[in-house]
């Protein structure tokens, strides 16, 4: 049972596994990203020569939904992994609640925009 007078007290007393889940997510997504990004680097810089890297070649490759999903997975995981890491730093170093609120607000907006533009760009090809 929760006995608390303010919303913040109730929040600290209620128990939530959010931080635990993020901690597990960071470990798993980090591991997956290593392989996804290494594969991406191999395909774009080693497998393909400079003359092959044309607009039509890229469009042709991304016509395959599997490659679309591959690229979108890098986008989504990297943004979530990175923004959660940045959230850790913001919560550690930005001490007052109003400052934390606007720093996080601006940051999440930028991350949301990058994700939206990335997704639109990827699926509109």
């Amino acid at each position, binding site marked *: 049972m929760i006995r608390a007078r303010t919303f913040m007290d109730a929040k*600290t007393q209620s128990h939530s*596994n959010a*931080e635990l889940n993020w901690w597990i997510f960071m470990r798993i997504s980090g591991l997956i990203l290593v392989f996804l990004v290494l594969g991406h680097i191999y395909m774009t810089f080693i497998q393909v020569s400079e003359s092959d890297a044309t607009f039509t070649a890229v469009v042709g490759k991304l016509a395959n939904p599997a490659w679309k999903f591959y690229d979108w997975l890098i986008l989504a995981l990297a943004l979530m992994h990175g923004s959660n890491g940045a959230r850790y730093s913001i919560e*550690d170093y930005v001490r007052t609640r109003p400052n934390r609120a606007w720093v996080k607000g601006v940051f999440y907006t930028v991350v949301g925009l990058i994700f939206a533009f990335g997704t639109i760009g990827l699926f509109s090809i």
Partner: protein
Amino acid sequence: MTQTQHETSTAPAAAQQALPMLHIKVKILRFDPEKDRKAHWETYAIDAQAGDRVLDVINEVKWYQDHSLTFRRSCMHGICGSDAMLINGRNRLACKTLVRDVAKDGGTITIEPIRGLKVEKDLLVDMEPFFDSYKAIMPYFINESPAPAAERIQSEEEAERMAQSSNCILCACCTTSCPIFWVNGSYLGPAAIVQAHRFIFDTRDEATEQRLNIMNQNTGVWRCRTAYNCTEACPRDIPITQLIEEVKRAVMYQQA
């Protein structure tokens, strides 16, 4: 006869030669709340032997050079955990640090109060926030079931699980070396988590779940970024970061 005379006359000389005095400087960060607005450095010249403890050096300053120097110390044998201070940039117990390990002849030892807690005077800090987070983890044995006739038996392996965390002397070396504790006052800190570890992994204790729930909060183990400062600072050689990871895993498996 002459030979024995020769021996007795050289013995003290040999002893003196083996223990030369080091001429060192001690630079201490001083702060007097009644006079100073900001802390300032003061340097004292001291002759010390290589085997002297840093605490002996500070005592020398207090007894013979500047009586107003304020610091905590009690047992002077590394058990009470009173004299944690920042010596040459690292948190250590002044009574467990030898002069030869921190300074050469002609060198300087710098001493500052431990960081992240309010300085009351000189090397004396307000330990209340530190003990508040210690109290938050319920640092006492909880077992509501009736006690057996003889004793609550624990196997050697079970005792081994909590052996390292029970070495903690609450000196605050670890917590005040933690960068997250410096910038974020709501983090419980390594010392409190080590104390929680001691009870969580005590097979005779019954409040494991409650303590794991305290650890699972935003102010608990998830604030640890594994900077390893605590492990390096611990004067009792407790592998603190590893113990915090063990608590993280215990929280994870309890929720699974």
